[in-house]
Each structure stands twice: as C-alpha cells, then as structure tokens.
C-alpha cells in the first residue's frame, strides 16, 4: 500500500515546544546552532547564534542529503541511516532523523565535542519525537476539520496573488 504523507500543520503552541527543545539543546551541547527541518526541506525552528545563515538553503540541502543517504541505505538493506556526522576544519555538522520525518541538525566547533553532542541529541531527539507525535495527530485532525485557513479562500484570492 503506497503511503501518502499528510500535510503538516504547525500551531503556535507546538512551535514553541519545538523551539524550546532547540534552545535547550543549543545550550546544553555548547553548539553554535540547532535546526529542525522536515524531510521535505522546510525549516521548522532554529536556535543558537548562527545568525545570517541562509537557512532556506540549509534546510533544502539537509533534506536532499538525508534523502540521498536514505536511498543508499535501502540499496544495502537498511531502512535509513539515522545518524550523520560531517567533520570540517573548524565546524562540524551532526544530523539525526527523528520520528521518521524530522531532521535535527546541530552545528558545533571545538568548544563542544562529538560525544557531548551525541548525548544531548539523544535526549532532545526523544523529546522532539513526542512533540511531533502530537503535531502529526493535530495535522490529521486539521486536515479533516475546518481549522485550515484555506477552506475559505476564493478564486479571487488566488487570482490576486498573480495580479501583476
């Protein structure tokens, strides 16, 4: 049976929970930045002091990278490679797949260590998984209910977007 993902809906209160986990992780892991990206390449939350980074590109490339290695995993009979570590000259990048659909990205330098990041990510990942379970349930409900802001849009609204 083919699997069609449900549309993801992120409400304010859930966003704050996700952000809380990111901020704590950024602090506890002594990292430079933490990002939560969905597997389709959309950024959901960020924390830390990597301001000015091109986060849209970061999110899309993170998703591309996880998709490509996920494809490789299937070829050798693994379901996925849930943990990725890229070591650079100064900065390192750690990615973990959470709850099958979210990617937790941590960027850190010599002020932290891989061991510490791994440890903190494990805890944060478990928390995020719980939050996303909630989000998933709410998204499914939102899909069936009238909460979508798009239930009300008219052809006129759509046309106006392309007025020029």
């Amino acid at each position, binding site marked *: *049976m*083919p*699997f*069609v*993902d*449900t*549309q*993801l*809906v*992120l*409400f*304010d209160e859930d*966003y*704050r929970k996700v952000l809380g986990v990111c901020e704590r992780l950024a602090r506890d892991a002594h990292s430079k930045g933490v990002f939560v990206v*969905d*597997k*389709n*390449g*959309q950024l*959901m939350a960020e924390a830390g002091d990597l301001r000015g980074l*091109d986060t*849209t*590109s970061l999110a*899309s*490339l993170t998703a*591309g990278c996880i*998709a*490509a290695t*996920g*494809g490789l995993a299937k070829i050798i009979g693994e379901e996925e490679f849930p943990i990725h570590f890229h070591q650079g000259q100064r900065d390192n990048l750690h990615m973990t797949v959470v709850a099958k659909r979210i990617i937790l990205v941590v960027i850190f330098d010599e002020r932290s260590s891989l061991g510490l990041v791994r440890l903190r990510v494990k805890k944060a990942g478990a928390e995020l998984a719980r939050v996303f379970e909630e989000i998933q349930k709410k998204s499914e409900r*939102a*899909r069936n209910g*009238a909460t*979508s*802001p*798009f*239930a*009300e*849009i008219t*052809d006129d*609204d*759509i046309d*106006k*977007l*392309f007025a020029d």
Partner: protein
Amino acid sequence: MSFINYASREINCKVVYYGPGLCGKTTNLQFIYAKTNPDLKGKMISLATETERTLFFDFLPLALGQIRGFKTRFHLYTVPGQVFYDASRKLILKGVDGVVFVADSQMERMEANIESLDNLRVNLGEQGYDLAKVPYVIQYNKRDLPNAASLEEMQRLLNPSGAPEYEACATVGKGVFETLKAVAKGVLTDLKKMAR
C-alpha cells in the same frame, strides 16, 4: 506536501519541474530567478555536473504574496532528466504538491518526452499519487527551434487529457511565468479543496 506554519503564518508548497534531459527545466528556474525581485526569492541552489547537467536537483525558494494573512512560499525543484538518475528523481518527487512537465519540442526528442512522462507516472504512482489528480501543467519548450514538432502532434502524444498547457522558449523566458502561475494556482486550488 504543503506545510502550514501558524507560528510564522506561512504556507510552504513544493513544485517539481520534470522532463527529459536537456528539455530546459534548469533554464526555467534560472529565468524565474533572474526576473524575481530580490525580496521575494532566496538563493538558487544547483547541484550539477561540470557540464551543467543537473546531478541531483536545482532549488529555488519563492515568495508569492499573502493569502488570508498567510505568506505563500513555493519551493521549486527540478529533477535530473538523464535516464540513469531515476533514483534521484524518485527522492525529489517526495512530498510534491504540484508538477510541471517540461517537454522538448524538437521532433527527435519526442520519444524521450514520452518516456519521461511515463517515468513520471510510475514514480508518482510508487508514492501513491495519481498524475491525473496532482496539480499538473505541461510546458512545450523550445518552440523557437526550426525542428519543433507541431503543437497538435505534441498535444496528441503528451497531453491527451487536456491538462493546462503552455508554449515556451525558456531561454528568453517566453511562457515561463505563465507556466509557474498555472501550477501555483493549481496547488492553491487543491489546498482549498483539501481543506473542505
């Protein structure tokens, strides 16, 4: 699949440009990128070979404006058209909200167009999508070339179901924004239907 973010009041949608190798998918995105106001676009990313063939994907994030207080953002992707990159094409199609099929009008590319369209159907099908139900438009590109097939022939071979279709010359931008608008409109209309 689209992503509605109430915290930032944004909605994100994913559109994929599909089609055979060298049909002009990357050129479409390059033209859109070149002609879009800097405030409304992000960086365009191209993961390409030394010879400018798409290796994994091109990516262009665009902001289209607001609907009911929500910023609508479109993430445009192209797939690599060369036949042997099929594994990558499947990955990029994941979570797609709308598809543009770019056909190469050159007579000698008609087989390649048909094969690529079949491949699109199969790859969508594997993910539980039906091309007939996904917001979808077709672009007949390279209309400027002397060896272009007639429009009637292309319609007959590639668009029997009568999806929205546009003639284009992507290198000079003819038909490029019309195509984009049509698919974006299809995606938003679909969102509205889904919300019902």
